């Protein structure tokens, strides 16, 4: 199967004419036809004939200018795209067609990659299970009675079910890492500012990050090399140089790199299979010459309140433009979950409550930043679970929004700080459901995360497991 190959392998095969772009794209559509009905990963599938025609055009002039040349990919439906509708999984936007492309999309198209679909998600990024969508829940390819995780659930499913080579997700509080963990793929939450947010429909502007989702850390490194960098259209994008991630990933020595483990991460709420899987992963890292060190993060429990005050505050502002005048439908089309977040945020920003909620949350955020600085001064990276449980049953959280929030307990604390985190497969539960771990690094340390992830994946085969469909 071509879609089991890494991007570099595909590129080599294309350049050596072992197979064609057409073959790869055709395989994607075969799998889409096979699984979309069951898994509901796509909101919009790009017209097959149009995509195949594009593939044939690319085949006429195979180029080695970019590793992504001729590679089919999908986008979370939060990125605006010229000529293809953008919904953000909400009927509030209706069939909105953007007059411009998101920067990340434009960069990928310029590199020669082929867009084949826009993916289902929690509307506006509001959720951790991809059930808060007006297009029906996304189903987990490992067990279709379970959720895919979210909010970038459709993206994760597309990779797990081999319907695309890679995806661009968006992570505000775990939205790339959580579905990556539950679908057994690799996903990166980048350093805030590493990739332009221009054209990414904002959930919480100061948390939102644009990142790759793929089968391996290696693929993520290839993609990040293309999409990272300063964008004159995003004032928060960083002008830091973009390193040669692929090269560094393969050559960087990880011997004596210090991985911190904090006891706060392994409390009562954590599923025992997941605890065991991460414990096993530590052994692999030790074999690689990595040093494991006990650290402490006393503020860990404050991640949820900080995230759920600032996130909704910003979203209440960001969604103000969908006022029923310019786009598709009126505000009563917002789902209950989205309405809840808008109301929480509006309240937290209101006169008389601002100091008590928003300002206090910002102060706690500053403490968090210091806490991470402190932690990452005694170790190079921190290893922790992605989620406290494996994928839940569809509908399980429908009447328990609070429990839904707690799914993000491990992933929400990185976004207020801005640090990057790589989520990758590290085992399976007794019920054969995927388990993920995340490696959190210092600002702009994606190269180290890739090196650790890549070398871990060269020693393990969790990431090559795929669901039977």
């Amino acid at each position, binding site marked *: 199967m071509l879609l089991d190959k890494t991007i570099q392998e595909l590129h080599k095969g294309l350049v050596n004419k072992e197979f064609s772009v057409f073959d790869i794209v055709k395989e994607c559509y075969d799998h889409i036809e096979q699984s979309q009905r069951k898994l509901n990963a796509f909101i919009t599938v790009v017209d097959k004939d149009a995509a195949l025609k594009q593939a044939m055009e690319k085949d006429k002039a195979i180029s080695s200018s970019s590793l992504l040349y001729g590679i089919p990919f999908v986008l979370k439906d939060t*990125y605006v795209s010229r000529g293809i509708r953008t919904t953000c999984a909400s009927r509030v936007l209706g069939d909105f067609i953007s007059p411009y492309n998101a920067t990340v999309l434009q960069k990928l198209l310029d590199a020669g990659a082929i867009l084949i679909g826009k993916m289902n998600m929690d509307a506006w990024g509001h959720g951790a299970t991809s059930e808060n969508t007006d297009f029906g829940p996304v189903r987990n390819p490992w067990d279709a009675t379970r959720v895919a995780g979210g909010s970038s659930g459709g993206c994760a499913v597309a990779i797990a079910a081999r319907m695309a080579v890679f995806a661009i997700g968006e992570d505000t509080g775990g939205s790339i890492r959580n579905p990556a963990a539950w679908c057994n793929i690799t996903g990166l939450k980048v350093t805030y500012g590493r990739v332009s947010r*221009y054209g990414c429909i904002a959930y919480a502007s100061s948390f939102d990050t644009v990142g790759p989702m793929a089968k391996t850390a290696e693929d993520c490194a290839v993609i990040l090399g293309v999409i990272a960098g300063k964008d004159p259209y995003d*004032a*928060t994008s960083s002008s830091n140089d973009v390193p040669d991630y692929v090269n560094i990933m393969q050559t960087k020595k990880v011997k004596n790199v210090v991985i911190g483990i904090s006891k706060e991460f392994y409390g009562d709420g954590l599923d025992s299979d997941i605890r065991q899987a991460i414990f096993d992963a530590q052994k692999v890292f030790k074999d690689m010459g990595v040093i494991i060190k006990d650290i402490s993060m006393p503020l860990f429990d404050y991640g949820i309140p900080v995230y759920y005050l600032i996130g909704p505050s*910003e979203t209440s*502002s960001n969604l*103000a*433009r969908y006022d029923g*005048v310019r786009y598709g439908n009126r505000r009563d089309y917002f789902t209950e979950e989205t309405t809840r977040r808008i109301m929480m945020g509006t309240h937290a920003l209101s006169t008389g409550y601002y100091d008590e909620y*928003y300002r206090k949350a910002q102060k706690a955020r500053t403490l968090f930043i210091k806490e991470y600085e402190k932690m990452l001064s005694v170790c190079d990276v921190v290893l922790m679970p992605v989620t406290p449980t494996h994928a839940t049953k569809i509908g399980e959280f429908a009447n328990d929004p609070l429990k839904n929030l707690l799914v993000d307990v491990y992933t929400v604390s990185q976004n207020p700080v801005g640090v990057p985190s790589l989520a990758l497969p590290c085992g399976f539960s007794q019920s054969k459901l995927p388990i993920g771990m995340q490696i959190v690094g210092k600002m702009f340390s994606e190269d180290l995360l890739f090196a650790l992830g890549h070398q871990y994946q060269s020693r393990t085969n969790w990431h090559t497991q795929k669901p039977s469909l």
Partner: protein
Amino acid sequence: MKESYTTIIGMEIHAEVKTSSKMFCGCKNDPFHAPKPNIYTCPVCLGLPGALPVPNKKAIEATITLGLALGCKINMLSKFDRKHYFYPDLPKGYQISQYDIPFCYDGIVQTSEGTVRIRRVHLEEDTAKLMHSTINNEAFDSAQPRPELTSKGEHVTLIDFNRSGVPLIEVVTEPDIHSASQAKEYAKKLRQIIRYLGIAECDMEQGGMRLEANISLRGIRNQESGIRNQELPPYKVELKNINSFRFLEKGIAYEVARQAEILDAGKTPIQETRGYDAEKQITFTQRVKETAEDYRYFPEPDIPPIRVGHTWLSAIQRAMPEPMDGVFSRWQKQYGVLPEYAGQLCEKPEQATWLEGLFQAFDAAGLAVGMCVNFLVHKRIQVNLFSDSYETICNTFQQATQLDDVSDDELNRVVSEVVLQNPKIAAQYTSGKTQVMNFFIGQVMKRMQKKLDAKKVERAVKKIIAQQNHELS
């Protein structure tokens, strides 16, 4: 006995900054000269999903420049904030403005009636422009609507986004203004400074400069303790959307009288926003605020805080022209030019440089500079300022000011002759064709072979014609 009051006014003035591009995007900033609506737009100023603002450095520099010219302190670390409210001309549902850390604060503007303290100078974005129209009229046709959506005769509101996102400076005073005339003087002076610095054109009619006055009255009589009442009154009336200095003055005067009448009756005026009706010359209620509006300000997360830094600040300072006030007071001392006259001739630093050269030329030619300026301001001598050479202008002045003497009797005699010999033309003048005056003036000078003061001849001609008409009737 009636109470007497102190008028208390604080002003908020907005000016559209003349940068080449808009505040947060690359669109052209030229809303008043756009040939069509909605041509200077992009995802950012339309507030489309996913679009992000990138601040315009030139607009920030203009704001700091104005702040420095007003003697303000500068916040070395500043930021933008979001101000939320729903209105069709505000596509994002919030305006990017500045809340608690404006670029500039604590400045002053001097007026002849006292010092006006400037509370803050901040930068924000302008909104789109709403046009209320009826289908099938001219404004609607030019906006190129989609006729299938509407029917003839229907009332619609159209939105022109050419102005959306144009940089807007807001200057806020302390409540230091105590009369309508002082408010007018302050506003005019602020416009003069802004124009002089080249920051904005301040076209009042187009809305390039907008005036707002918060007006209230404080009783000063019943202070039996003898202690002056310094507290602010428990209400204020916001006079908004004023687009001329004259209307500002009249509107405030009207408000002061209106509020005094209410206070005299033992009542307190309602806290509200009022507009000015120029035709009826009255103010009228626009909006009564029952509760304080909650804009839910919070720091704009899409724009990192702005560190001004000493290098940038001194570069801005170096690029500033000599302060206008300084130039004018120097001219008064050096050349005897009245500052108010200087202000009428000179709006820009390059004009100041040119005028200074002219004053020196006047001086060298033995002309009294003060008198020459007086003539220029009152247009008693026609020259083309800023384009004619100094030599040409000096010659014109020399010729014009060297007049021949003539006695009143002799002048009246010649004027009578000329008028009597040209009865038809005199009749034309009487019937309102005043341009024939130049004929009489020319004839008189020709007949006398003298260079006379044209104004003096004109007065004589008018007098003679009037006398004749009187005799005839």
